[in-house]
């Protein structure tokens, strides 16, 4: 008998094709463990799929909206979002880099006001998606290695 490593969910959201080892970062960026204290969340790490290893996150009884999930595009640009109702995938789409990235990336400029204890979140304007270019809203620095700056 074929045994499923990750059980299907009845209703909710499945985030698939997360680069291996990044599932916890995805959860952290989404802030889901705090905002959905009652949801059952399952995580699968290093699942072998058709295109190699990947991570999967399943959130039961909650359909995540596009703008909530697009925040993960920086670390999981190829992730897909599957909305599940009664065990069926009713909607499937890729994540998209949003116009602004708020509170996810740290500015590499040590003299930027966003790196002090001011009551603000970091904020970057997306200048181009392909290749990804972002600019700090405050000091206007354009960081190069964006993935290393994820908070």
């Amino acid at each position, binding site marked *: 008998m074929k045994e499923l490593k990750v059980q299907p969910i009845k209703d909710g959201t499945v985030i698939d094709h997360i680069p291996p080892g990044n599932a916890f970062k995805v959860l952290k960026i989404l802030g889901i463990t705090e905002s959905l204290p009652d949801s059952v969340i399952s995580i699968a790490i290093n699942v072998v799929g058709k295109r190699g290893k990947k991570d999967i996150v399943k959130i039961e009884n909650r359909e995540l909206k596009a703008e909530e999930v697009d925040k993960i595009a920086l670390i999981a640009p190829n992730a897909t979002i599957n909305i599940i109702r009664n065990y069926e995938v009713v909607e499937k789409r890729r994540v998209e880099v949003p116009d602004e990235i708020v509170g996810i990336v740290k500015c590499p400029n040590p*003299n930027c006001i966003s790196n002090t204890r001011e009551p603000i979140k970091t904020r970057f304007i997306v200048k181009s998606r392909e290749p990804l270019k972002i600019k700090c809203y405050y000091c206007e620095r354009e960081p190069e290695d964006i993935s290393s700056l994820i908070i």
Partner: protein
Amino acid sequence: MNFKGRDVISIKDFSKEEILYILNVAEKMLPIAEGKEKSNLLNGYIMASLFFEPSTRTRLSFEAAMKRLGGSVIGFAQPGTTSLQKGETLADTIKTAESYCDVIVMRHPKEGSARLAAKFASVPIINGGDGAGHHPTQCLLDLFTIRKEKGQIEGNRVALLGDLKYGRTVHSLAYALALFKVDMVFISPPELQMPKEVIEECREMGANITIKNSLEGLDEIDVLYVTRIQKERFPDPEEYKKVAGSYRIDLKTLENVKEDMIIMHPLPRVDEISPEVDETKHAAYFRQTFNGVPVRMALLALVLGEVK
């Protein structure tokens, strides 16, 4: 054009038409700035002058501008005398200050600080310099000076000389001059050259750019804009002396320049312009300093909505 309530954070927030509009208002302010006419235009308004970092020209000329227009000034010139010393955030200082005034002028050592202040304040914020970031009022007074001295901004060949790498004020000036499609020559030691992005941006905007490492060819220049080469950019003090010396403007370097070539400098200067040059008709830097007053008067009157 309506500037009422607007923040002045970066020159890039303004179009060419808006810049010309500000310069035209500044032109009208000249007799008041010179003390020849009296004005009560901003009577009853209060400007908070928050200088978290030392400044002579920017602070004094803003305060003079406000007072020449009949307004009042509150503020500080040394953060040591404020609650910042107790660890207050800039956001809290701004929220406090705005409840006492109608407009805030600030200088702060951190880049992006003016943008942050604008987020927290409901009164207009005018950036008087944010670290190595923007200094839009300097840029406007530079443009005003070129127009006043040369009749117009377009058609001049402008050389920017000195530390072009780190000084973002020269980056803003280059951008603003490119808006007017001015021919520019960037003269600097190789290690302090204008960043590639700035050069590319200016060229894309239609400006003709030449890059040089020496003072040769000054005879073709209409405006020579000199900036300070800072000692701390060089690990070896001997190297600094050598480099700084080779870009020094004195009477000898001016032998073959155009009769009406002007020399500008944002000041303070150290050794980059010899004091003997002050006596020549080329020296425009003290007139440039004065021009900070009418330009800042124009900005205050515009953002407070008393000039439309």
